[in-house]
């Protein structure tokens, strides 16, 4: 197994086509990351239709590369123009931009590049070791365990950073309901199709995701057309000095652990990881006063954590079929589209492909480091592309991408409708990621509940007699009610 994994990962390095593809996708990912509003999730949604004709490993490598490179690239604009290219880089603005204003933009970018690379590579290594172990545990899972696990995954939506807990759960339930559209899998009874037989097999994820992430973002960006972007001047990216390394190595290591752990939790992602990484960096720092004024520990804490979350988020996605973030939800769809069924069988029957994907993520981390060090200044200029040119192009890519998936115009209309729904949801403080996660998990929840009921002759409470299922349901309960109980206890103590 170990030898097989090493040889599969090494095969990436000697595959010129795959290396070229990762290089091109890293460039694209960095461009997507620096363009405010686009981000890893929108970029992956737009690119998904382009991967349809690719080999499965190449397709997932493209999506994973977009994920890691765009997550890193958000820091470039966060530091230079005080606008995070992705939400995961929001914490980087706290200290990155103040340091850039002091004339040290190159140093800030250097710290961000190194921290991101260490975080990314650390999480890929953890992914390589943790994923097969978790897969072994998941081998024991049956329907009650999977049902409880998906309930746990849905409960974690409550703690996604955007929106409030209740709003996120409402979004998640809406997403689960969307998965019930079409013919019911056991009985074949048509649900909510209204005579439209193109919906017989249900809503497909691709057009819905393009609508929710790309079209809705287009409408959100239409509100910012008058915004004038000011950049901070920079000569070149500077590698951290010995003094800098001495100051930040502990922070980077801590954030690597935090980011990977947060990433592994279902439905949590890089944004939450970077916020926690930043606040922990501040808590443990000897120079707390520097935070908010250009602390390099602040930049390292946020950047190592958000890139560490990328590898972590791939663990539940590939092992359990539960996405760790909005972008991994799209990667999960990519896996399904290409016939790579996430779960235990992926690690037993297609282990070579799995490790090639991991190897691609490793290479992508090295490539974005080189690009960050040598071309950050160039990429920063991309962020100055006028919105009135960029977003109409995104519109064209979205509608054609939605059509290309199944060759159905209905998918184009669905993308537009869900774009408008996503826009109104975001307008009123609902995040669209829970809808996407709910849509993916919906089928798993219902199917596993049906199977569990059959297993226990309709006595649903017997699900609680299964130790693992009970554990996940307790976690779900704690995820939902834990913060409320904790604040109540704190109030009582006060």
């Amino acid at each position: 197994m170990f030898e097989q994994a090493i040889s599969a990962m090494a095969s990436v390095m000697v595959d010129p086509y795959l290396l070229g593809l990762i290089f091109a996708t890293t460039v694209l990912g960095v461009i997507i990351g620096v363009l405010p509003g686009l981000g890893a999730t929108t970029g992956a949604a737009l690119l998904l239709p382009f991967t349809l004709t690719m080999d499965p490993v190449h397709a997932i490598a493209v999506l994973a590369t977009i994920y890691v490179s765009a997550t890193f690239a958000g820091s470039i604009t966060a530091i230079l123009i005080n606008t995070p290219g992705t939400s995961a880089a929001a914490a980087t603005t706290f200290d990155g931009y103040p340091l850039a204003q002091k004339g040290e933009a190159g140093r800030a970018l250097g710290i961000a590049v190194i921290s991101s690379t260490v975080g990314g590579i650390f999480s890929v290594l953890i992914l390589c070791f943790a994923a097969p172990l978790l897969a072994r545990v998941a081998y024991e899972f049956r329907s009650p365990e999977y049902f409880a696990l998906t309930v746990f995954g849905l409960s974690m939506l409550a703690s996604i950073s955007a929106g409030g807990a209740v709003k996120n759960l409402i979004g998640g339930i809406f997403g689960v309901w969307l998965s019930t559209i079409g013919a019911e899998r056991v009985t074949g009874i048509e649900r909510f199709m209204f005579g439209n037989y193109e919906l017989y097999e249900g809503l497909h994820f691709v057009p819905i995701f393009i609508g929710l992430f790309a079209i809705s973002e287009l409408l959100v960006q239409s509100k910012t057309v008058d915004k004038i972007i000011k950049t901070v001047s920079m000569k070149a990216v500077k590698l951290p000095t010995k003094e800098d390394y001495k100051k930040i190595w502990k922070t980077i290591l801590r954030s690597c652990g935090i980011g990977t752990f947060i990433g592994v939790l279902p439905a949590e992602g890089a944004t939450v990881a970077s916020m926690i990484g930043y606040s922990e960096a501040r808590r443990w720092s000897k120079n707390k006063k520097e935070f908010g004024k250009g602390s390099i520990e602040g930049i390292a804490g946020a950047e190592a954590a958000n890139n560490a979350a990328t590898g972590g988020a791939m663990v539940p996605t590939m092992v359990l079929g539960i996405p760790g973030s909005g972008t991994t939800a799209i990667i999960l769809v990519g896996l399904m589209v290409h016939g790579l069924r996430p779960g235990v069988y992926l690690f037993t029957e297609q282990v070579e492909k799995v490790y090639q994907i991991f190897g691609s993520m490793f290479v992508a981390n090295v490539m974005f480091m080189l690009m960050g060090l040598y071309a950050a200044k160039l990429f920063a200029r991309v962020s100055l592309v006028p919105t009135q040119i960029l977003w109409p192009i995104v519109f064209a890519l979205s509608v054609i991408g939605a059509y290309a998936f199944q060759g159905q115009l209905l998918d184009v209309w669905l993308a537009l409708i869900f774009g408008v729904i996503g826009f109104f949801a975001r307008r009123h403080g609902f995040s669209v990621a829970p809808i996407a996660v709910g849509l993916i998990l919906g089928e798993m929840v219902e199917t596993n509940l049906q199977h569990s009921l059959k297993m226990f002759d309709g006595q649903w409470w017997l699900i609680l007699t299964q130790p693992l299922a009970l554990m996940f349901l307790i976690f779900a309960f704690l995820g939902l009610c834990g913060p409320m109980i904790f604040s109540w206890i704190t109030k009582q103590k006060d």
Partner: protein
Amino acid sequence: MKYMKNKIYLIPLILAIFSLSVIAISLQLDTSPEMIVGDSMQARSFPIFLMVLKLFLLGILTYQFYKNKPKAVSLEKYHTWGSMLLFLLFYLLTVYTDMFIGIFVVIFLMSILWGEKRLWVAFLTATVTPGLVFLLFDFVLKIRFPRGILMNLYYG
């Protein structure tokens, strides 16, 4: 009713109406014979369960709104509403003329609507983008586009 004067309660209300509509539609779904469903659920049960759960959460959300009084969301600028109207125009043009004519017109008008003053730049974007995307999808990805005025000329 006095709370309804405040716009913020419109969202929970609309979502509650949606949930109740789903429940009403679900109740009209066919039922399966016992020998197929066995001890499992009828097709209607799961959506109804979801909507009841959603109504419960909407109750909590309304209470949160009542306690915290969030600010009403301000109305967007004409760019946003105009873009949505362009989506409608895209639908009409795609159905009655050709998808690529729809894309061309929407890109051109959207660029101008969003503030592009140079007509030639808007025109160039509207022409080059669908052209390149068509070449990529048709030649590389081998995808056939829906028939319309332009595609009939191309496919023959």
